[in-house]
C-alpha cells in the first residue's frame, strides 16, 4: 500500500513519468478485464485507454481503502460493463456453437495424437470464447492474473459465492470440452 501511496502522490504532484509508470503497472490487468468482457481487441483498447483517462481525472478521489490495482480494476470493469449494457449484451450469456475448433473436435478427427502444448493453447482460447463474458473474465483474473476471490469481489461487487459458482461452472465446462485433449477418457 505504501508503494501505491507513493505512486499516487507522484501522479497527483505531476511528477514526470509517474502517470506512465502507473499505466504500465496496471495496463495488463485492465486489458484482461476489458478484453474478456467486450471481446473485441480494438474496442477493448479504446476502453482501456478510457479507463486510464478516468483514473487520471479521478485519482484525487482515491482514498487508499483498497489496493490501487483493485480500484483501477473496478473502474475498468464498470466501463466495460457499461459498454456491454449499451450494446445490450448479456454478461452471463455463453456462445454455444460459435467455435470452429470445437466443431473440428466434433467432426471426429483424431486430434489426440497431434495435441502439443501450442494446440492445447489454441483449443483453450477457442473454448474460452464459448464461455460467457463474466466466466471468461473470472477465469482469467483467477488463473492468469492470480487475483484472490476477495480482490475479484472488490472489483466487481459480485458476491464471493457467485464468483466461485461462475468459476466452478466454467472450469467444469472447459474440462469437459478439453478432456479428449488432456489425455483423459471422457
Amino acid at each position, binding site marked *: 500500500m505504501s508503494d501505491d501511496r507513493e505512486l499516487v502522490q507522484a501522479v497527483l504532484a505531476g511528477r514526470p513519468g509517474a*502517470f506512465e509508470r502507473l499505466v504500465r503497472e496496471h495496463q495488463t490487468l485492465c486489458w*484482461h478485464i476489458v478484453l474478456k468482457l467486450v471481446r473485441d481487441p480494438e474496442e477493448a483498447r479504446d476502453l482501456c485507454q478510457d479507463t486510464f483517462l478516468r483514473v487520471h481525472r479521478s485519482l484525487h478521489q482515491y482514498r487508499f481503502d483498497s489496493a490501487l490495482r483493485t480500484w483501477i480494476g473496478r473502474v475498468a470493469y464498470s466501463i466495460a460493463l457499461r459498454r456491454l449494457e449499451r450494446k445490450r449484451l448479456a454478461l452471463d450469456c455463453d456462445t454455444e456453437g460459435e467455435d470452429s475448433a470445437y466443431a473440428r473436435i466434433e467432426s471426429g478427427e483424431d486430434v489426440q495424437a497431434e495435441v502439443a502444448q501450442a494446440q492445447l493453447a489454441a483449443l483453450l482460447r477457442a473454448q474460452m470464447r464459448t464461455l460467457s463474458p463474466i466466466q471468461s473474465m473470472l477465469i482469467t483474473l483467477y*488463473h492468469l492474473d*492470480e*487475483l484472490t476471490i476477495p480482490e475479484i469481489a472488490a472489483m466487481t461487487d459480485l458476491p464471493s*459465492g457467485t464468483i466461485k459458482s461462475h468459476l466452478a461452472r466454467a472450469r*467444469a465446462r472447459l*474440462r469437459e470440452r478439453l478432456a479428449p485433449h488432456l*489425455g483423459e477418457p471422457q
Partner: protein
Amino acid sequence: MSTHTGPDHAPSDDTHAMDWPRQERAFRAWRDGEAPPSDDADARTLQQLYAALAEETLPALPADFAANTVAAAERAARARRSVARFRRALLAIAALCYLPAMLAAAATLAADALSALWHQETGGAALSWTATLTVLAALSWGIDALRTRNGERDRPTLRS
C-alpha cells in the same frame, strides 16, 4: 507465485456446491507442485487444465499504449484547464455587467423611496433628524480616527 490462499467456502450455487472444494483441492495441489494421485483421473485432468489456464495467451496491448494514454491524459487535462479558465472569465464578465446594473437599480429604488418619504407630512422631519444624526456620528468617528492616528492616548481609567 500464486496468491490464492484462504478457506475453501462452497459457492452459493447448489449445482456446483460440491465441485468447488474438489476443484480447489486440485488447484492448490497443482500450485504447490504436488502430483495428483495416480487413481484420480479427474484431479489429473483438472491440473492439466490449470496449467493451460495459467499459460493462457491473449492478444497484447500495443507497445506504445502507455505513451499514447499519457499523451491523451495530458491533452484532456489541458482541455479541462481551458474550460475552467473560460468559465471564470465568463463569470467575471457577468459580474462586471450585472453588478453596476444592480447598484444602479438599488440607488434608483432608494432615491424613489426617499423622495416619497420627504413629501409625506412627517417624513420630511424624520429624514432631517436622521440625516443630522448620521452626520454627527460620522464627525465623531472621524475625530476619533484622527486622534488615534495622531497618537493621543485613551482617557485614564479610575484604576490608574
